[in-house]
């Protein structure tokens, strides 16, 4: 059973968002890392780059496949997890902690409200597997 922390927001593309003031911290969910398998490469944007909601901001590669990761909210990159360059396995080991990917300064913080709650995301992933 995938871990879905209560206090986060979720996208249907399997990213999570932790709101810290006007900043969103974004990563991929436990369910997503488990489906991908061993992550061997993470490509992230540079500080200052701008993304609209649902726009791809980077990619995650397992041995077998490449998957794009999408920004759940609109805004400007204010930090990235550079440790993933050398330790991409953190995405598998600690997807909600050491595996975080980007910090994004939200241009429309209200977008968070349209994301899924933990309970809604859990239902969503169940539908995905059945």
């Amino acid at each position, binding site marked *: 059973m995938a871990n879905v922390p209560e206090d986060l927001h979720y996208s249907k593309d399997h990213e999570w968002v932790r709101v810290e003031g006007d900043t969103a911290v974004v990563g991929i969910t436990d369910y997503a890392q488990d489906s991908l*398998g*061993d992550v*061997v*490469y993470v490509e992230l944007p540079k500080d200052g780059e701008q993304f609209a909601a649902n726009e791809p901001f980077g*990619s995650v*590669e*397992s*041995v*077998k496949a*490449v998957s794009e990761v999408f920004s759940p909210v609109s805004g400007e990159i204010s930090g990235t997890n550079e440790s993933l*360059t050398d330790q991409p396995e953190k995405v598998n080991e600690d997807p909600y902690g050491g595996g975080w990917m980007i910090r994004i300064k939200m241009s429309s913080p209200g977008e968070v409200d349209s994301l899924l709650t933990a309970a809604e995301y859990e239902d969503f992933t169940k539908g995905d597997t059945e």
Partner: protein
Amino acid sequence: MVDFGGWDMPVQYPAGTVEEHLRTRTHAGLFDVSHMGEFEVRGPDAIPFVNRVTSNDVTKLIDGQAQYTALTTPQGTVIDDLLVYRFAEDHLFLVVNAGTTDKDWEWINSQKRDESVELKNLSSEYCQIAIQGPDAESILQKLTSVPLGDIKYYHFTEGQVDGVNAIVSRTGYTGEDGFEVYAAADKAEQLWNKMLETGNFGTDTGVLPCGLAARNTLRLESAMALYGHEINEETTLLEANLGWICKLNKGDFIGRDALAKQKVEGVKRRLIGFEVTERGIARDDQEIVINGERVGKVTSGSPAPYLKKNIGMGYVPKEFATEGQQIQIDVRGRLVNAQIVKTPFYKRER
């Protein structure tokens, strides 16, 4: 699970591709490759017939020996790559790829002339389980009285495995020592479970079941061709560096004239192996760029779990096909530096 030539197959088992790959290199991996196709060729003309439709020299085989070869078009391109097993002078057994089984079957039948041979498609009657890796022999030996140490590489014997009649072949697609076991399809589950149990599946050094992804990365590290990637009906054996299974002096075979001509004139492009030299992973079908020109494509690209490098194979014009040549791969719009290296990327210590 993914569809693979009409078969539902796992991309990976719970341990994951990297662990499956490493365990096969260090201990043992188990592969359910029952999707492969099997044809039987019997009759007094079995050898001359198969020799005419394949590129390697079937007359060189002795009873109990297997050979890697190809079904070739009149243009010298590849309909499929396969193994030919010789049971007797009048009895051969062909093992072909799953996705090409129907095509191969039609082709072989259409090429039959007045030869006295009887062809049977036994694909649905056989399962095939491969146990590969340094511990493969000791695990399998616990299940059979066949003296496995006496079977040389690319040789086989008939015997019982866990009481089941089987063909035991010292062959594989991983670059490791190991065996491929063929038996009646309804025995697949028994053999699979028994090999896992005997191989201490569940312990840190035990056998691991391996999915399609590990099968692919293992063969790629060993620079073995995969049909539909390195070889297909657009690539000739010589371009694919498979001249060693192309016996131009054995007498006539389909594609011989075209291959002989290409050998004299020289190929225009050649399959090479490369290593990515900066951050980035090359993937199948991405373009190869040399001196700013798009000159070829990646046929297989992936991280190599054992070598811990990002590697690939692909075609480049012959003049660039030399070790040390700098190339670039167009990885989704970003040009990533790579270098042509010697293949195989991985070779086990013997």
